[in-house]
Each structure stands twice: as structure tokens, then as C-alpha cells.
């Protein structure tokens, strides 16, 4: 860390290097089929266009290089930018890819630890400016019914005040609350958060899932249907519990 000797009248340094943690999505690639990559990127981003707009990300080529799929960084970057995403780093690239990335002013990160690459000593000390840690805790609130064929993706929690029809699909990286009848498919903790839960007023779902552990309608017992329940994971088993406990 270096300090600038010039100071402003109120004794604050004009600039200062600080260490700070950011949570940035990593785009892991396991193919060099640029057309397929572009298609899938477009599909994914269309799920939540607002979330993905101008989203910074780090390109991860560990798997693709292990599979000997050589990816041209210039072409890949163009595709990623076209979908509205902003690549801000590369990791797991080979020599040639790293050079290509630097030519495009994209920094290289080491595979082991992205956050502390520039300042390994900082690893031991607690983060000095915790308020700058970016975590997406935004909650999506929906008051309109979710109809058959509609898909909703929330990057944080998802709260729905209206019904979710059968044939509809709601997904959240965090918890899902449905203050009405849930007839469609609901997946909480879709990025692997095993602490995520689903709450609903009236369970008639086609499928429920927490962090990839799912139950289809057929497997949901009659004793928990048509009533307010919460759904959570316990030892990798999906528990469906009455919200109103009778003592």
C-alpha cells in the first residue's frame, strides 16, 4: 500500500490504495464452441435482463483448458460484451490467452485466490472496510399473478403476493415467499444456498426444490398439501413443515 504525500486542505489524502473484497460472478467455460456459448449466455441473461445488465464478471478457463478447448479471448470478449456483460478479469488461462487478455486490458487473476492476489498479507487481517463488500441481497417483490409459462428469476429473495399458476416457474438464489397459492415450480437457493427456504400459504406445487434437492408433486404427502408450509433442507433431505404448529 502506498500513500500519496499531497494532501487536501481538510487533511484527507487525495488518493489512497485500500484493500476491499467484492463478490463477482465467475463465468466458467467448458467448451470453445463460441456459438453455443453465445446462445446460452443470451438464454441466461434473458432470465433476468436487469440483473445481468452491465454485470462485471471474471472469465474462468480452467475447465476448458483442461479439456484442451482453446478459446480465443478476443472473440469471447466480444460475445460477452454483446450480451451486455462486462468481463473484468481472466483466470485459468494459458500463456497465449493471458497475453491476449492483457492486450485487451483485461487483468489476469490467479486461480487460487482472486481477492488477495495483489496483497497476500491482507489475507490474515480482517477486512478494514467491510461496508464496501458487495453482496446482492436485493429482494424482488411481485404483486401480479405468475401465469403458466412465465419464469421469474430473483438474485436475492423472491416475495410473491399473488398466486403462482401451474406451469409457471419461480427461482431465487435466496428464499421464496408466496403469500398465496403455489401451484407451479419453485426453486430456492438455486445457486446452491442450502440455507434457503420456501414459504407458501397454500402448497399445491408441481415441484419444489432447495439447492437442487427437489420433490415433485407426486412425492409431496397429502398431509402437507393445501396448507401454509415452509420447506427447507436438513441433512440433504427436503423437509416440508406446517407453518402453523399445533401444540
Amino acid at each position, binding site marked *: 500500500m502506498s500513500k500519496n504525500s499531497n494532501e487536501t486542505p481538510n487533511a484527507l489524502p487525495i488518493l489512497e490504495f485500500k484493500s476491499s473484497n467484492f463478490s463477482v460472478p465467475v463465468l466458467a467455460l467448458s467448451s470453445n464452441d463460441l456459438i453455443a456459448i453465445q446462445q446460452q449466455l443470451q438464454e441466461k441473461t434473458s432470465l433476468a435482463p436487469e440483473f445481468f445488465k452491465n454485470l462485471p464478471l471474471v472469465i474462468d478457463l480452467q475447465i476448458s483448458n483442461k479439456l484442451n478447448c482453446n478459446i480465443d479471448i478476443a472473440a469471447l470478449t466480444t460475445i460477452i460484451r454483446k450480451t451486455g456483460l462486462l468481463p473484468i478479469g481472466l483466470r485459468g488461462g494459458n500463456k497465449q490467452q493471458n497475453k491476449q487478455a492483457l492486450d485487451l486490458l483485461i487483468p489476469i487473476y490467479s486461480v487460487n485466490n482472486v481477492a488477495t492476489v495483489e496483497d497476500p498479507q491482507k489475507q490474515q487481517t480482517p477486512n478494514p472496510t467491510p461496508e464496501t463488500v458487495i453482496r446482492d441481497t436485493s429482494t424482488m417483490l411481485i404483486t*401480479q*399473478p*405468475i*401465469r*403458466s*409459462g*412465465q419464469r421469474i428469476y430473483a438474485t436475492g429473495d423472491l416475495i410473491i403476493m*399473488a*398466486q403462482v*399458476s*401451474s*406451469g*409457471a416457474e419461480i427461482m431465487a438464489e435466496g428464499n421464496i415467499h408466496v403469500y398465496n*397459492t403455489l*401451484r407451479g415450480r419453485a426453486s430456492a437457493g438455486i445457486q446452491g444456498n442450502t440455507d434457503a427456504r420456501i414459504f407458501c400459504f397454500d402448497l399445491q406445487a408441481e415441484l419444489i426444490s432447495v439447492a437442487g434437492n427437489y420433490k415433485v408433486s407426486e412425492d409431496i404427502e397429502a398431509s402437507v398439501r393445501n396448507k401454509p408450509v415452509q420447506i427447507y433442507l436438513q441433512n440433504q433431505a427436503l423437509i416440508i413443515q406446517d407453518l402453523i404448529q399445533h401444540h
Partner: protein
Amino acid sequence: MARIIVVTSGKGGVGKTTTSAAIAMGLAKRGHKTAVIDFDVGLRNLDLIMGCERRVVYDFVNVINGEATLNQALIRDKNCNQLYILPASQTRDKDALSQEGVGKILDELKKDFKYIVCDSPAGIEKGAHLAMYYADDAFIVTNPEVSSVRDSDRMLGILSSKSRRAEQNEEPIKEYLLLSRYSPDRVKLGEMLSVEDVQDILSLHLLGVIPESKSVLNASNSGMPVILDEKSDAGQAYADIVDRYLGEERPHRFIDEDKGFFRKLFGVK
């Protein structure tokens, strides 16, 4: 200000064209200048139901392509001089319609008409999409059975996400439920969903229930919208629906079975 009404359902054979013809006639009979457009290019039916099939010269696609003017293509109804029909082309397919072309025609009609009723084709493809795209109000025609209800739900999702109003973040399309081919006796036997079941699934404002009725088939065969058959149950149901749409209070009918023996004997058929 003119209002564009789309009559839609997702599923075929539920009574969209019958409903389009009936409500267009009902609105016109109440003195509102009304146009009804057949969006089912390639499977033209509305002209038959309206009894004007032998007067079709130009059609919707001709107007879009600039081969005819709107005034040349519009057919004035023989029963009501406030009602005009714009027939679909039978020889083309739905790709002949374009969003821009449809928008232009609707804008032109809006200058002259109070209500524009768009009779949507079945499905959720281009024809159905264009029929609902510019709508202000949507009449969702549903039969009391699960597949029809699900398709209606799907269509409601499309209305709330793919319409012009949705795309431009305007006030959403007003959605109304029309439950057609309803038979209280069969509901009682458990062969049909009840009004409550359908409303529970769709959570939509019920504009009216149209009973399963022979009069509908008779009306179609004779090319007279069923609403003109004022003695028939279906005709009365549509009359109620038009009144309710125009803001009048009408108690719901045709939901409960006729209980008494005498009512069965002497009641409306």
C-alpha cells in the same frame, strides 16, 4: 377514446368467434360504433358466424398490403348499421400479418370506431400475438375443463408480458373471464369444473357465464350472432356480459342448475 378488445383463449374451439360476434353485435346494438376483426388468417370463420361470407371482397391482408383501403374491406352488418366486419384472408397464412401493419390499421379504425373487437386465432403464435398486442381489454374465453383453464392462464401470462402496454410499461390490459359452454348439471356430477374452481385457478374478474346451449349452434348455422336470439339463454348471457362490460350491474345467471320441476318446465330453455 376508442377501446381495443381482444377475445382470446389459447385453446381452440372454446367459443372465441361466437363471443367476438356476440359482443361486437351487443356493443353496436347499444349504439356504439364497433368493428370486429378476424385475425384467424387462413382459417376464416367470423364472416360465417356474422352471415356476411357472401359479401367478402377484400380482406385484412389486402388492407395491410395496401391492395385495398380499409373502407373497401369493411363490411357493414345487415342487422345493425353500427357494426362493421373486417374479414380475414382465407388464402394466406398468419405470416401475412405484420405488427406494424396491424398497428396502422388499428390506429385508423380508432379514429372512427368506439370499440374494436379482435377475434384471436387459437394458439400462442403470431396470429394470436398480433391480435392481443395492441389490446386495451382482454376477454378470456374459457371452458370449464382443466386444459382450457391452463391455456387461458398461459395466455394471461402473455398478455401481461408481451403486449404493447406491458412493453411500454403502461397500465396493464384489463382482463375479464368469460366462462363458456357451462353446464351446471355436469358440474354437479363432477364432470366439469365449477365457476369457483375456475376463478380459484385463474383469479380473474368474472364477466359472465355462458351456458352450453343449442342456440349457439343454431345461431352459427344461420349466420346470426347468438345475442340477437333474445329468447335464448346464451343470447341473454351475452347481453348481460355486454351490459356488465359497459359498467351496468347485472346479477350472474346460469351458474346454478334449475332446481324446481316447474322451473324446468316453464323456465327459459
